[in-house]
């Protein structure tokens, strides 16, 4: 290095391995290249068809914007809903049903049968025995009988109508709850739509990207074999380092299913619970798939 000798500025290092390693490595590289050439144009994702969630949710040719907005629905069924007129409508409907008066008349006709065939003949007979048929007492007596009939009629009618007060109140409250459920259901559907839209859109574009990147992905395997002799390098991993245990998977799906069922139950009782449970299970499974 010193003295009068000149030092070369160019240094070349060639990394070599034992011949048997290089032979085997050459074979590995050639084999990988051959496989790469045979599969690089096979595009396994090419026939993936995008999932069209909009059609499923809204029908062919429709989008979410074609339907009433959530705030419109909220205004119609809740904030702008006239609670007072609902009560008046239900009260009037429940207490003035034609069937109520028909029922009253039917009962009074039965009473009349008794009156015509038993009460009045008995009254006339006794008045005749007293020789009082032609006196004012007989007239008043008959009028009293008719008056009592009117009382009975009124009592029957009132009893029937008073029972309908409870029905009017029940109907009133149930309709208010129904309005709430309409909004809750609409919200749930919207929430489910957006969760689905995000998930499915991601899946669709992930497959599209994988399709375009397929040659790169294949070549990436070949890349990894070039430096096979360096420790710690291998085929690229495409899975997570840590996987959820089976117990955890079951509990996770169960959690989503139960939550979905109970949330659905608030919206639509048992049918809602079933639908909610199914939705919860689907979401739970989807979560696991995308982990």
């Amino acid at each position, binding site marked *: 290095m010193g003295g009068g000798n000149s030092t070369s500025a160019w240094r070349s290092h060639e990394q070599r391995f034992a011949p048997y390693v290089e032979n085997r490595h050459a074979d590995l590289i050639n084999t990988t290249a051959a496989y790469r050439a045979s599969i690089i144009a096979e595009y396994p994702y090419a026939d993936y068809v995008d999932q069209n969630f909009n059609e499923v949710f809204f029908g062919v040719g429709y989008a979410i914007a074609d339907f009433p907005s959530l705030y419109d629905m909220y205004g119609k069924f809740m904030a702008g809903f006239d609670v007072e007129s609902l009560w008046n409508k239900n*009260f*009037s409907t429940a207490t003035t049903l034609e069937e109520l008066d028909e029922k009253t008349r039917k009962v009074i006709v039965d009473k009349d049968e008794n009156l015509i065939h038993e009460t009045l003949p008995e009254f006339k007979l006794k008045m005749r025995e007293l020789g009082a048929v032609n006196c004012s007492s007989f007239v008043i007596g008959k009028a009293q009988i008719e*008056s009592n009939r009117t009382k009975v009629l009124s009592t029957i009618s009132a009893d029937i109508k008073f029972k309908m007060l409870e029905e009017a109140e029940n109907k009133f409250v149930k309709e208010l709850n129904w309005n709430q459920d309409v909004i809750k259901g609409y919200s749930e559907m919207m929430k489910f739509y957006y*969760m689905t839209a995000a*998930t499915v859109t991601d899946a669709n574009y992930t497959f599209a*990207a994988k399709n375009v990147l397929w040659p790169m992905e294949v070549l990436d395997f070949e890349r990894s074999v070039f430096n096979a002799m360096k420790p710690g390098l291998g085929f690229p991993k495409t899975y997570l380092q840590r996987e959820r245990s089976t117990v955890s998977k079951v509990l996770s799906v169960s959690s989503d299913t139960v939550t979905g069922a109970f949330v659905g139950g*608030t919206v639509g009782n048992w049918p809602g619970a079933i639908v909610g449970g199914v939705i919860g299970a689907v979401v739970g499974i989807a979560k696991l798939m995308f982990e």
Partner: protein
Amino acid sequence: MGGGGGGSAPAYTWSEIRYAGYIEARHSDFLLSVYSARIGAISNSPFSAYTDIEVDDAFFGAGYTISSFPSLYDMYGKFMAGLDIEALWTQEYNDTIDSSVVNDLIAAEGALIDDEIETTSIPRLQTGMRDLNSVMSSSFVVGKSLIEDTRTKMVAKFSADLKYRLIPVAQSRWQTHLDWNKQVVSIYAEVMKLYFSAKTDIDEVNYAMAAKNILWPFTVLDFERAALGALQGATNSKTDVAGASTASRVLSGALSGAAMGAMVGGAIKTSSDVGSLGSAVYGTGANAANVVGYSYAGAGAGVGALLGIAAAATY
């Protein structure tokens, strides 16, 4: 690098790293393949045609935003804090006891009795009296009066009974109205929470897609970079497209959280549901202090949450 003395040291040194010939030949071929694949992929971004998922239209209608609607505090002021509950009670009482539908019902009751008197009672009385030649007598008049008197008494009794029975109904309606107002505000808040959850998550999806589209060339080139450095041990830094992976985050994010917490609201219960309608409408007038009950949804959400915690613990 040079030594001392009279020797001259070179200004630069070059170091060349070479590999076995078979490796270099194959690597060169490999790089050409990668280059060719890159040319095909780099201008073919699958995200270029992505259309943003729309949130505002679905929540508010085309052309509207959340600012176009009353604020939550306005709604709270209108339906709760600013509500005159005394005036509401008076309104409910009057509307229940003296409403037109109540008076219509009383009139209808009178008409029903009238109809029965006219079609049944009076003809039956008249028929007997005609046989006795008593139609023109005072007794007949008194008899008719008796029936009419009863009619008047019964209509008045019906009216009084009806209104008496409607007093607890008015109280119940007042309570129901208060509960309804509470629900209006609660659900407004829940809808707003859902909006922000959806907006946040869907924005993330939309912007992630936009980022993926812009970063697409780098996603492709990253493979080539790794290919160039393959002999030095370079690896591809990603197994996904550059930009956030969104779906799993959405499912476990705010929107999913909203699914857990949102809409677990209580239904308004009738007074009979809380065991007091019998007394409220037909009895002593005891009223439900609280006619809002919370459905089993709350318990369900709790069970779901516990299972979720267990799932996390056994991950």
